């Protein structure tokens, strides 16, 4: 069942640009980009119980590193650009995560919220580097001799990177590191008594989460082709949190589904911008009341990670 579904799903995703109009190809790229963020956020919040309302900040750092790097050094292959965007964002994640080690719950949420504002302010004020509020037109990404200019080409880039990152996340959560993160969420004293170094794993979760979000930010820059600070406001951070709550805290498949739901809803509700927060709020409340485990808790057994 699992194998068959994976095979059919992969075939569909590979043929997708030949089956649907261009706009849906673009939209699917956004779903995958958001899914990478949701997985990163879930590793931090769902697995390690560290709430973040600042992931739009990490997303922005990744997007701007990728954009500025491509502008200044057009010869760098896109894969290297994305890795660098991820690593730079991971460093920022460490810089935020280490001082946040003593914070929990609401206090951590406040600190990360503030971080999101700081990043937007920084982008606006470092205009020699980021062009401030004018935004940056992101040059076409290059992979060797290939110019990834069409929506389909960008889609395959996003899909390839996304597949690697999903696979890595599934591996992490099935092995020692993932269990250590879950142990911290479940009981800090029992985790310590089992030899888990709390500070090290909490910091690692921050860095990995930021890495994922930074790579996704870089992909986002290439997919949309233009970035400006107003795209990374606090509401984007809230959208990311909504993805993992609706999808399921502590679930990789849930992260992907949650990202798809929110991204598609966002798109369908484009004409009703003003009602979006209201509707998302209602969905979140409904989800917490009636489906606290998120969509992941209602998915069939074979989609869950094998134990």
């Amino acid at each position, binding site marked *: 069942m699992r194998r068959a579904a994976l095979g059919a799903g992969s075939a569909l995703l590979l043929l997708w640009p030949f089956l649907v109009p261009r706009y849906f190809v673009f939209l699917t790229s956004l779903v995958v980009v958001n899914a990478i963020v949701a997985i990163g956020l879930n590793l931090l919040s769902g697995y390690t119980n560290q709430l973040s309302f600042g992931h739009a900040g990490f997303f922005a750092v990744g997007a701007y590193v990728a954009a500025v790097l491509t502008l200044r050094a057009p010869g760098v292959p896109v894969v290297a650009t994305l890795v660098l965007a991820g690593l730079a964002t991971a460093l920022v994640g460490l810089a935020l995560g280490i001082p946040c080690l003593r914070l929990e719950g609401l206090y951590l949420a406040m600190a990360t919220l503030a971080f999101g504002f700081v990043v937007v302010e920084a982008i606006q004020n470092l205009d020699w580097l980021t062009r401030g509020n004018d935004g940056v037109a992101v040059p076409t990404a290059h992979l060797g001799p290939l110019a990834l200019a069409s929506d389909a080409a960008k889609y395959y880039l996003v899909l390839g990177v996304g597949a690697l990152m999903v696979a*890595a996340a599934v591996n992490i959560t099935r092995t020692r590191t*993932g269990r250590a993160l*879950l142990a911290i969420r479940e009981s800090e004293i*029992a985790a*310590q*008594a*089992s030899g*888990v170094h709390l500070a090290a794993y909490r910091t690692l979760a921050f860095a990995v989460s930021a890495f994922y979000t930074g790579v996704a930010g870089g992909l986002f820059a290439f997919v949309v082709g233009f970035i400006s600070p107003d795209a990374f406001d606090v509401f984007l951070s809230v959208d990311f949190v909504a993805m993992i709550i609706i999808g399921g805290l502590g679930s990789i498949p849930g992260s992907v589904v949650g990202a798809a739901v929110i991204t598609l809803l966002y798109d369908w509700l484009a004409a009703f911008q003003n009602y979006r927060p209201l509707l998302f709020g209602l969905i979140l409340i409904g989800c917490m009341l009636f489906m606290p485990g998120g969509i992941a808790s209602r998915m069939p057994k074979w989609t869950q990670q094998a134990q």
Partner: protein
Amino acid sequence: MLSVEDLSISFGGLAALGALSFEVAEREIFALIGPNGAGKSTVFNIVTGLYRPSAGRVRFRGEDLLALAPHRIARRGIARTFQNTEVFRQLTTLDNVLIGRHALLRAGFLRGALGLPAVWREEAAARAGARALLARVGLADAAGVQAGSLPLGAQKRLEIARALAAEPKLLLLDEPAGGLNPTETQTLMELIRGLRDAEGLTVLVVEHDMELVMGISDRVVVLNYGRKISSGSPREIAADPAVIEAYLGSEEA
């Protein structure tokens, strides 16, 4: 093996332990008993690094434990269970035991993310070992069950399996018989004896259940209000008038 010297700690001006000393020898089953609030669990929390005492020393195989963080103490070979159980509630019993083995597994973050063959080999071996431990504490059929949904007695046994997964030298059991029926307590006593006899573990146990204490302990220390009022073999302390007054006496009243 474990030596506790002049240990004192107070919480908000209230002395929880006063100049407590005792020494646990290798391969010994050593019991700490005393009425509620006598400071027994506090001793565990100091030995495992959760509390810092205001005075005194704790040494394990000659090394000062007070200088070490809790996870380092665990890695030195000290594993514990908890009085009110601290299982990882939303995880399966199998994952609970696998986390107990954390310090002995080598797959780091990157090797885990890449899913190298060596990682899966290690993982498969760890899973087999964890299943064997679950079987040993009578939870063979519960490997996929959420730990939080188990009855209290099963959670206590799960904690023992999790502690054993770390292959400790010293096992600290905090009221392992709490919530168990007499048959379960008998099984538990055989398990603890087996750990010492077959695997050479040293066991320090805090317990209210007199049958267990009298049945398996080599030596017993009796605490009351944070002070040692008696020590010796189970037979000796059972005959000590101070113990009868402080503990056994109060229970009959």
